[in-house]
């Protein structure tokens, strides 16, 4: 596999994302597959951020440490990240922003000074076009032709008019020419094969797209990084998709509004993170008791408390599974990549409606903000299953919202859709939804609701496997570690170690099929991005089982294959 790692570092507000987006789109157009992750601080201007793009000639799902190209828009990029550049890698920096010490650091071969803003201005363009200068400069290391980059700029700035397009193209050409000239002896990578259409998008695009495909009609949310992208996506596309996205005064209002809408008969959701998710605990329990479908996206970030708002972690798993006073049925899904995010999000609505319960979809900052190229989604795979719903005709005046059935699922009636009255309560209730106090009805209702939990477990999504079939080493993870684990497994196998990756797209209830995997004779490690081993505890409590070891990251930074491999004990594999 040919891969190429480009990191663009700078302050918030300097246009990192713009440069990144231009390059991502152009590279995809050129035929590259890519994975690009973002690292930013909890501030609007200043600080030190980066976007890191990994290009490859086949699909990639994680990032690599060593850089082929480093683009520095600020001094910190040089002082902090220069060490990550591979021998032979290229550094492009803006000399106008470097202090004397940093300047000394770049007095090396392959370090190219390029005053991005100055170049733009010299060409009579506004400073902000520095972004295109930088993009052009990087492009020179990727291609001998600037055409695709120009095309990309034309598409991206089309709305702003011809002058802007041309301005951007001209400054990009300047950056391109300058770097091409200085790196003439350097070969550009072979142009990747294949030019089938692709999507390039982030988790925060794929999740709301999945929701829209599933027919979500109502969302309410309160902004919270890194879930805000989902919220703004639905807001932005609300008119086209005919969906209401109503900003709430707080997360409590958000989820309760969505519950109200769902009760009335539409697919409804909310999205939040950490503290906001915590505030939804009570309402989630209400949805469980009242048997109202609801889908909640929790985009995880490092806690406890406000923690590191813009970083990544998988530390909400325990509470997603446990949050509840009292027991009620639920499912917790944990997509591992952009494609899974899309399809699982649609699946979440089916689960929620078929079992009339809350479903939590765990995302995290790494999934939310990382771009990846994927084949176009297959919308025919999205099946909308609204569960057991009574038609107007069937719903006679003796309709019972909580009618006891064999499987615990009572037929739903949307209020106003028949003569029957829909009576719902979070207090314990009888089949008619009115409040009860007696022990017998209580027992029956608990059993009815929890019968659904058993069904959910029986139909739980199976683990997604990769690597060797009869492994000597098994790496088990969930959510956004999927790509890192897969790559680690691939590397291990290439080194002769029979490794297998086990990704759990559904973390609660865990699929029974996991039991068989756990009994395989391999040495097993659990890989997760939290301190205490929340997945490990979950598996332990379900299967009374402990792994041979665990690999955990809790500094707010995303996993990758190297992180995992570095932490595997020596000699863990016979092959290696």
């Amino acid at each position, binding site marked *: 596999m040919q891969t190429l790692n480009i990191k663009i570092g700078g302050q918030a507000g300097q246009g990192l994302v713009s440069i990144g987006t231009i390059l991502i789109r152009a590279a995809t157009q050129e035929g590259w597959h890519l994975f690009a992750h973002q690292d930013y601080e909890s501030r609007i201007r200043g600080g030190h951020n980066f976007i890191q793009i990994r290009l490859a000639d086949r699909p990639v799902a994680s990032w690599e440490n060593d850089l082929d190209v480093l683009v520095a828009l600020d001094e910190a990029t040089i002082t902090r990240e220069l060490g990550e550049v591979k021998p032979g890698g290229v550094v492009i920096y803006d000399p106008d922003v470097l202090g004397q010490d940093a300047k000394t650091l770049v007095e090396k071969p392959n370090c190219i000074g390029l005053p991005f803003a100055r170049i733009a201005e010299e060409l009579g363009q506004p400073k902000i076009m520095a972004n295109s200068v930088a993009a052009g400069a990087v492009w020179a290391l990727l291609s001998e032709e600037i055409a695709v980059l120009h095309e990309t700029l034309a598409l991206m700035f089309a709305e702003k008019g011809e002058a802007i397009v041309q301005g951007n193209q001209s400054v990009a050409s300047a950056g391109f020419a300058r770097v091409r000239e200085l790196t003439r002896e350097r070969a550009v990578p072979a142009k990747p094969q294949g030019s089938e259409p692709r999507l390039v998008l982030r988790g925060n695009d794929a999740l709301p797209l999945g929701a829209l495909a599933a027919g979500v009609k109502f969302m309410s949310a309160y902004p919270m990084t890194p879930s805000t992208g989902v919220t703004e996506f639905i807001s932005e596309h609300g008119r086209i998709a005919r969906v*209401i996205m109503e900003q709430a005064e707080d997360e409590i209002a958000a989820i309760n509004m969505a519950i109200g809408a769902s009760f009335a008969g539409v697919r409804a959701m909310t999205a939040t993170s950490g503290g906001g998710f915590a505030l939804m605990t009570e309402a989630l329990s209400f949805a469980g008791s009242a048997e109202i479908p609801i889908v909640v996206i929790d985009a995880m970030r490092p806690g406890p408390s406000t923690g590191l708002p813009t970083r990544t972690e998988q530390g909400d798993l325990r509470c997603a599974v446990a949050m509840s006073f009292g027991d009620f049925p639920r499912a917790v899904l944990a997509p591992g990549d952009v494609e899974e995010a899309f399809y699982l999000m649609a699946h979440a609505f089916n689960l929620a409606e078929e079992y009339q319960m809350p479903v939590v979809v765990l995302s995290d900052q790494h999934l939310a903000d990382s771009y990846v190229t994927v084949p176009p989604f297959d919308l025919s795979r999205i099946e909308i299953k609204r569960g057991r719903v009574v038609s107007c005709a069937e719903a006679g005046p003796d309709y019972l919202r909580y009618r006891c059935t064999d499987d615990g699922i009572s037929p739903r009636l949307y209020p106003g859709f028949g003569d029957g009255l829909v009576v719902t309560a979070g207090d314990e209730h009888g089949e008619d939804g009115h409040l009860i106090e007696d022990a017998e009805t209580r027992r029956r209702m608990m059993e009815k609701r929890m019968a659904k939990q058993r069904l959910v477990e029986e139909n739980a999504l199976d683990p997604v496997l990769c690597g060797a079939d009869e492994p000597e080493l098994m790496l088990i993870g969930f959510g956004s570690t999927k790509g890192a684990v897969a790559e680690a497994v691939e590397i291990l196998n290439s080194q002769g170690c029979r490794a297998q990756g086990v990704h759990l797209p559904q973390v609660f209830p865990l699929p029974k099929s996991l039991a068989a995997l756990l009994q395989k004779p391999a040495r097993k490690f659990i890989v997760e991005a939290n301190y205490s081993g929340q997945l490990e505890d979950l598996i332990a409590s379900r299967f009374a089982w402990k792994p041979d070891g665990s690999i955990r990251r809790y500094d707010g930074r995303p996993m990758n294959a190297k992180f995992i491999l570095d932490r595997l004990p020596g000699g863990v594999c016979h092959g290696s």
Partner: protein
Amino acid sequence: MAVDQRFEVRQETAWCPGCGNFGIVRAVAKALNGLGLDPSQVLFVSGIGQAGKLPHYVSGNVLNTLHGRTLPTATGAKLANGDLTVIAVGGDGDGYAEGGNHFLHAIRKNVNITYIVHDNQVFGLTKGQASPRSDPGMVTGTTPLGVYNEPFNPLATAMTLNAGFVARGYAGDQEHLARIIQAAIQHEGFALVDVLQPCVTFNRINTYQWYRDRVYDLDQEEAYDRTDRQAAWKKSWEWGERIPIGIFYQVKRPTLADHYSDILDVPLVRQELDPGAVEEILSEFRIG
């Protein structure tokens, strides 16, 4: 009032004999019968408390949600199906303590619902603790030396938030209350009906007798102009020898549904779900 009697009041309740809640539930039924509505087209959303039990005692759909969460829940339901007549019901603790934030913001959103608050000036169901509406000096289980917090004025607050319909009823005057509730339901937008409700068990201050001696109908005031917000705000502070009931303030403002009118041409709940509709949006992300 019309003769239609489709809304019935249940005999069995969990309320104390003599409770003001009985007057409220009867007024609600009377108002709805008077409007000729069908119970299957009416949705009650209620919180937790004695007041929150009301929907279980009168015909209609019921979404008996959490303590304090009536308003966002009702807002969501109304946006999903604007054909429903949505009536939110709760106590003063539910609405002004636990639910205070939603009170502010539901009004700001101006969703077309009616909000009836059983204002008994105590937490009834939890046995009589002070509510934001308790009069200063009232001794309760949590205020052994008497209530000291500034009482919350829901009418003045609603007007400050520019609510379009702000009224007060009295549980002891069912006819009047039913009329106000009808007007509230007919008002397009958020309508607050705060109802003075004697709690015969825990509130020994604000009793039927106490109210009977004080309550008077605003409509009796010749010069009262219910479109003058400034005057209405001032009026809402009258609480002593005389206590006004009636519609304090009413104006028409655009509702939340108006903002979403292009989406809500068909109620959300009647719109088709079609995965294919996402194709157009997906194209933004397609390259090549």
